[in-house]
């Protein structure tokens, strides 16, 4: 099953709508709640990353009986140093973003901790693509 969502940069009021809808679908499929939790955490972080850092992006979710594959592609500044961005506590988020409760520097590490497969492709000045895979069993 394929689901797709569009994400607008800077639109914090709608951040989380993709993860919320995917959560709904997984619940209706009776997926183990602990697995759903990992999907929600990873996807929510990734979604907020697009909102906080990129101009716009899209999320494609592919659900099969073995698991969920999430592909997030954004048009944005890209990540100059992926190694640094994967360090817990490191953040480039603006003061404004931090004041809204985002940007604690846990985004990418948190996604990684909650997924079975996690890869980043990024081109500085162009954008970032994430591939997140979480298995159901």
């Amino acid at each position, binding site marked *: 099953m394929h689901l797709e969502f569009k994400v607008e940069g800077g639109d914090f009021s709608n951040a989380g709508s993709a*993860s919320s809808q995917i*959560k709904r679908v997984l619940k*209706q*499929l*009776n997926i183990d*709640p602990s697995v759903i939790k990992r999907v929600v955490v990873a996807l*929510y972080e990734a979604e907020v990353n697009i909102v906080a850092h990129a101009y716009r992006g899209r999320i494609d979710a592919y659900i099969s009986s073995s698991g969920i594959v999430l592909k997030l592609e954004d048009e944005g500044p890209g990540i100059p140093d992926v190694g640094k961005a994967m360090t817990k506590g490191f953040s480039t988020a603006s003061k404004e973003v931090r004041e809204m409760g985002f940007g604690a520097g846990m985004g990418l590490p948190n996604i990684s901790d909650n997924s079975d497969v996690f890869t980043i492709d990024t081109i500085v000045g162009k954008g970032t693509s994430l591939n997140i895979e979480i298995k159901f069993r």
Partner: protein
Amino acid sequence: MKLEQTTYNRALEIVNDICIGCSHCMKVCPTEALRVSEGKAKIHVDWCIDCGECYRECPTRAIRVMDDDFSRIFNYTHRVLLVPSVFYAQFSDNITKKRINDIIGELGFTEICAVEQSIDSLIEEENEYVRNAVKPVISSFCPAVVRLVQVRFPSLVENIMRLLPPIEITAQYYKRKYAEYGIPDQELGIFYLTPCIGKIAAVKSPVGGYTSPINGVINMDYFYNKVYLAYKQKIPVTKEVVVNNAISSKGVLFPTTGGEARLIEGKTLSIDGMKNVIDFLEMLENEEVDGVDFLELRACDQSCAGGILSHRNRFLIAESMRNYASTLGGEHELVSDYKKHCSAVIHMEKIEPRSMVKYDKDLDLAIVKMEKARELRRLFPGIDCGACGAPSCEALAEDVVKEQADINDCIFLRTLYEKRGELSLEEAVKIMESIWGKDRFVKRNY
């Protein structure tokens, strides 16, 4: 709709002879557990959480509460009634508690006890629990909320506080007290007067590996009428009733909104009303809530003052309770007695989620069915009119893929098929009758 064998004890049933199939109940059910078929509402029992929203809405009182027959109290020599503070608040202030208690004695009870007597000792246990538990802790007080979490928010089940609600602790206290008097167990009947339908199911099939010592549940709406009638008829007092009214202001306020949360340390929220509770639980499940320690969630607006079996206006009841509380001290005299026994017996075991099988238990099949349902939803008008006998277009799509409804049940598609000449008018009427009943087009006399 196919009704599955019930696996959970429930407190509500629809009386077919009275149901007019108006679908009002179907529209308010928070778990979409109701459908209309052959002109009558049907409950999907495994999805029902006994919140009683349907009961509140039903214009013909066709939803029956499966409470215990009152005469059952006389099977016991000692008949204790556990009375919630919300009961006294059903009456106007000029009817004294003494008079109400006398009448309760006259009606057959030998002892009366305030349900919320256990609050004073419970609150210490709650604070201790909250300090050590997964946050935010969801209060286990409201049975409809506990069941809502089990059915709709299975991932949050571990957040439910695994401490027994006050009613069970008070009942246990009585069990012990009478055992100490040397009274045989079978002679003691403990009855709970409930403002809440959820409590009926909660007492009969409690969560968390526990068996309740309560022998029966009395419907407060029914009992209010009985007491008020006796009051109006000025019945004489001929019997003695023991009144154990040890209760603190904390206890009286506990069942009102904020009454529990304000006693818990840390960052707490009190949220009442089914819709507000669901909205917040969605956010919590989405990991969008941070730093909250305790959640007092109550299904009814104004908490138990707005209980389903409550008769008087909820705001007047809440005011009455606040007023009564202001006359009481912060702690009552039996608190040390309660504390002696409290912590050993009030912990529950793990609470299990009660998942709703929406599409299929088999995941591959569930995905196929869900995709079909999503496809169907694109055909349906999306206005959730309910003319198909399901609460929403989404629910109809689910029912169709599960072969519990037909695509032609949608009145919009039916009209379209008629226009195309694919469906005859007779067939269309037949479908309407199969959902809304044969006599639906007959003019009714109100």
